[in-house]
């Protein structure tokens, strides 16, 4: 069981006079195979939450644990998809995907099989030997997601993964991610500032307050999705037209709006 737990987490940055309180008393559990999205005003500490799970930052107080184990350093069991892709420009798509597997000391055959598999899954077959700069933004992000997925991680951490993409590509990638979540469900922590994206993708949406960031409320999307059977639609725009979707979106918008205006 790979759940993520935030246990009374406090996070401060800097020292003395310059010390800022980034996260205040975050208490949150992301269940096994659950897709949880965090939305919040910019600078509220959404990304810091993700970086705590990834092991890039340490909590000042409290603890973050994954599958019952306390996080002490980054590792391939918690794969990260970065906003700016963070692909190694000197490695081909295949080389980027391969690195994590090689680090696991996996045999050549097994690696080749896994890579072929994930390339197919992400529709990257024809771009396997291209360098990142030869790929479009959407393709680069596919590679970044493939690099994370191929490790078969317990949890997947996505930091505004589609923030750097143009609107059309973004929609395609969102649909792709929903498809992926159905084929290979994982525990996902997804950071975004786009409410529609959160409602479309997530099982639950956590709304954060302004700094110091706290979890203001958690909105259940999954029960609505199942009750209204959103999954019968292939396309995002059909889902977005549903009254149930609009209702949830507006509710979260209002909650967020109070934060932005105050």
């Amino acid at each position, binding site marked *: 069981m790979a759940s993520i737990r935030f246990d009374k987490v406090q996070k401060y940055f800097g020292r003395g006079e310059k010390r800022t309180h980034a996260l205040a008393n975050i208490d949150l559990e992301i269940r096994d195979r659950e897709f949880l999205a965090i939305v919040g005003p910019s600078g509220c500490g959404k990304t810091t939450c993700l970086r705590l799970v990834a092991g890039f930052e340490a909590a000042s107080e409290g603890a973050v644990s994954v599958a019952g184990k306390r996080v002490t350093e*980054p590792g391939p069991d918690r794969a990260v998809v970065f906003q*700016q892709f963070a692909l190694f420009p000197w490695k081909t798509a295949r080389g980027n995907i391969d690195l*994590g597997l090689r680090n696991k000391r996996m045999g050549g055959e097994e690696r080749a099989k896994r890579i072929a598999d994930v390339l197919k899954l992400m529709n990257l077959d024809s771009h396997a030997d291209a360098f990142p*700069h030869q790929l479009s933004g959407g393709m680069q992000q596919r590679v970044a997601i493939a690099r994370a997925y191929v490790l078969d991680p317990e949890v997947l951490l996505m930091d505004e993964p589609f923030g750097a993409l143009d609107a059309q590509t973004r929609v395609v990638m969102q649909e792709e991610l929903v498809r992926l979540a159905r084929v290979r469900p994982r525990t996902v922590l997804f950071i975004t500032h786009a409410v529609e994206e959160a409602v479309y993708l997530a099982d639950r949406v956590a709304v954060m307050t302004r700094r110091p960031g706290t979890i203001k409320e958690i909105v259940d999307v999954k029960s609505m999705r199942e009750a209204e059977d959103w999954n019968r639609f292939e396309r995002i725009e059909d889902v977005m037209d549903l009254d149930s979707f609009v209702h949830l979106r507006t509710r979260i918008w209002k909650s967020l709006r109070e934060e932005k205006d105050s």
Partner: protein
Amino acid sequence: MAWRRQLVGLSTIITVALAWYLATSVTGFISGGRFPSPVDTWAAFRQISGRGYADGTLLAHALHSLRLVAMGFAVAIATGVPLGLLMGWSRRAEALINPVFLLIRPIPPLAWIPLAILWLGLGDAAKIMVIWFAAFVPAVINSFAGVRAVEPALLEAARMLGTPPWRFITEVLAPSASPMIFTGLRLSLQASWTTLVAAELVGALFGLGRVLNLAQQDIYPGMILVGMLAVAICGWLTTGLLALGEARALAWNQGESRPAS
């Protein structure tokens, strides 16, 4: 516009060549004792290519100098780049080494020449030593800066993927710093040639600098010009070779095509 630029460039070079000929050979405006005419230069070139000058042919002198530059440059890369990477990689190493580096760095490489001659004599070893010192500094500085300029997200991505230390250095830090490393190597190469020529001018038994030195003593302007041109051509060749290596090593960095999605 490109063709116009080339046309103007070409006509400039022709004009300069013509002016050179007119000023030296036809009008005698510049005396042959000050600057050689094209004919003098050609004669000097014939002499050094055939019978030789300063104990060797032009090719032998040039190969000798090239070999020294290659050796000094290679030693500088082999020592400077790893040191720069190490200092970039570890703040402790930086704190330990940087003050010594700062102490030695203000001394221009050419100022080492008398000491090198005292220590190692007029032979090849002294030349290699000063070239090493000259090429070392840019190699270290740029490798260091290259590592420190790595995008933090790439470091985080590598750590997230569980990359072990050695692979981290060879597959993440070094390639990521490589554009800067090559910038450093270009500077190193330039410094190598300057230093070699200076060292050979101060005292040498063989090489292009020796040709220049002897020609100066003999007051032989034609040979001076031939020597200078030979130095320039050697420098140009090695720079081109390095650029070729850079283009190969940084193929991932060269592409301009970025197809729209």
